[in-house]
C-alpha cells in the first residue's frame, strides 16, 4: 500500500503562482519537503485556495505554506495557528488576501473561515507565511525568499511535531494528483 492510498493523518499544502515571483515560495517549500520521508503526511502543491476546503476536510492537522505581504522584511517566516481551536481570522488577515498578486478572489483566510463556518476546519491548521519581496510576473524567487525556503520547511515540520526527517529513497512529485498513475 503506497502513501497515496492510505488516508493521510496530516496535509501540507503549498499555495501560490510560480509565475508571480515570490508567490511561488509555497511550491518551493513543498518541493523541498517532498524529498523527506514523512509517513502519513500528504504533501501537495495547490494553486486554488478554495481547494483547501476539501483537501483538509478529513485530517486533524493541516499546514499551509504561502507567500504573504505584511510589511515585514522579505524572507521573514511567520506562523499562525488558525484551526478550529484558534480565534477566527479577519478577512484581511495576512495582507496576502488583499494586496498580493493573488489570482484568486478567495484566499487562504476565506478558505479557513468558510471551513470554520461549515464545521469542516481541522482542529489544527497552521499557516506558514514567507514574506514576499516581489510578486511581479516572472519565474523564480528573489534572493531573501529563496534563502528562507529551508527555514519555512523547518517551520512546517515543527508544526507537524516532527524534526528533520531522513530523505526519501524516491521523492514524491507534490504536483501529481494523489493516487493517480501519471500517463507513461
Amino acid at each position, binding site marked *: 500500500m503506497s502513501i497515496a492510498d492510505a488516508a493521510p493523518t496530516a496535509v501540507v499544502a503549498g499555495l501560490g503562482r510560480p509565475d508571480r515571483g515570490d508567490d511561488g515560495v509555497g511550491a518551493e517549500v513543498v518541493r523541498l519537503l517532498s524529498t523527506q520521508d514523512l509517513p502519513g503526511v500528504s504533501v501537495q502543491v495547490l494553486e486554488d485556495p478554495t481547494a483547501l476546503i476539501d483537501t483538509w476536510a478529513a485530517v486533524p492537522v493541516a499546514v499551509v505554506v504561502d507567500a504573504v505581504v505584511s510589511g515585514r522584511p522579505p524572507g521573514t517566516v511567520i506562523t499562525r495557528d488558525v484551526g478550529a481551536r484558534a480565534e477566527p481570522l479577519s478577512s484581511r488577515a495576512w495582507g496576502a488576501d488583499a494586496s498580493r498578486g493573488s*489570482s484568486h478572489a478567495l484566499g487562504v483566510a476565506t478558505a479557513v473561515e*468558510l471551513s470554520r463556518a461549515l464545521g469542516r476546519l481541522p482542529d489544527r491548521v497552521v499557516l506558514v507565511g514567507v514574506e514576499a519581496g516581489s510578486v511581479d510576473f516572472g519565474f523564480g524567487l528573489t534572493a531573501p525568499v529563496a534563502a528562507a525556503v529551508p527555514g519555512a520547511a523547518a517551520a512546517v515540520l515543527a508544526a507537524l511535531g516532527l524534526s528533520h526527517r531522513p530523505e526519501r529513497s524516491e521523492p514524491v512529485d507534490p504536483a501529481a494528483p494523489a493516487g*493517480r498513475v501519471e500517463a507513461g
Partner: protein
Amino acid sequence: MTTTNPATGQSLHVGMLARVEGEGGMDIRIRDGVVESVALNIFEPPRFYEAFLRGRRWTEPPDITARICGICPVAYQSAACAALESICGVAVPDHVRLMRRLLYCGEWIESHTLHVYLLHAPDFLGYDGAIEMAGDHPAVVERALRLKKAGNDLMALVGGRAVHPVNVKVGGFYRLPTWEEMSAFRPTLQRAFEDALETVRLVATFDFPDFEQDVDYLALRSRHGYSIESGDPVTTGGLSFPVADFPRHISEHHVAHSNALHALLDGKPYLVGPLARYTLNFDQLSTTSQDAARQAGLGPTCRNPYQSIVVRAVEIVYAVEEALSIIDGWSGQPEASVPVPPRAGEGMGASEAPRGTIFHRYVLDDEGIIRDAQIVPPTSQNQPSVERDLQRAAQAWVDMDDEALTHRCEQTIRNYDPCISCATHFLDLRVDRS
C-alpha cells in the same frame, strides 16, 4: 476603509475590490450630484505572457498560457490549440473535439459556480461575503462547494489536474480517460445536475434592478451546439465573420487611465460573456436549460447584466447535461491526439471562456518557433462597456451614501465576473465628490 481628504471632500478608498478574480481599481468623480467620470484603473503587467511566448516552440502555449488564469486555464489552452493547429493545417478528429468540450464543461461548471455562489450571490442576499452567508445558509454553501468540486473533478478526469490541466497538448491529449473512469464519474454529474437546477431556482428569487444594455453583443456560434470550445464570431448587430478575420474587426487600444488594453469591435465598444452567448445562441441550449431559464423569468434574450447570475446558472445546467451527454455518447475511439508538424504562418483561434470569447493569434516560423503572440481575453474586451455601465449605475444611485454607492458599483462590476488576473494587477476604489 474610508478616508477623508479635506481639500477635495470625501473620498472612498477600498483596498481591494472584493470578490472578483485578481485585483483591479475604480475611480468615480462626482461634482454637484453629476457623475463626471468613471475610470477602471487597471495596472496590467507589461503583457508578460505575450512577450514570454516569443521564441518558444509551437507545442508550448497550452502549458504556458494555462498559467495566465487559475480559474479558466482550459479557455487559454483551447484557443491556443485552435490557433496553432490552424497554422499547421491540422483538424483534430471529432472525438478529440468532444473530449475538449467535455474538459471545458468542467471549467464552466467550476468557474460559474464559484462566481454565482461565492462571489455574486452575497450581493443579492445582503451579505458582505460568502463567509457571512455560510453562517446563515450552510446548506447553500455546501451545495456550492459540491458543485464546484464536481467541475474541478471533471477537469482532473480529462485534463489530468484541476488547475493547469497537464494532459492537454496541441493535437489533442496525452491520454484519454477510459470508459471505466468516465462511467465512474456519472453519479457525481447526476448529483451536479440536481444541484445545478437548484442553483437556477435559488437565483431566480433574487431582486434585479432594471437595467438594459444597448451595446453590441459578440459570441461564437458553432454548428456543433451551444458554443463552448469552438465556433465563429457573430454579433447582435448582424456581423458574422470567421475566427481567422478577428484582427480585422477587433482592435486593442491603450487608454490613458488604464494599463490594460481596451478592445473595440469595428471601432465601437462591445460585450462578450454569458449574456452574449445566451442572447445569440439560446436556440442551441438544451430543452431542460431553456425551460429552467423560462421558469426563472428569462426570455430568449437577456440584456440585463444583473440577471447575468441567472444566465450563468442556466449555463451550469447546460454544461452538466452536456458532460453527461458526451460521456454517454462516447464512441470509444482510442486515438488521443494527432501529430501537428510545424509550419510557418499566422493563425487565429477562439473559444468561449466562462467569461466570454477569448482570441489567440500566433505567428510561427518554419521550425515552429513563435515569432509573435497576441492574447485577447474576454475581460479586456468588456472594459469599455463595463465603464459605461458603471457611469450609468453611479448616476442612477448618485444620491445614495458613499458606502451604499460603493457597494452598488462593486456589484455592477461583479455582473461581469471580471477575470481581472487575466488582464490586470491591483485594484483600488475611489469615489471623489467635489
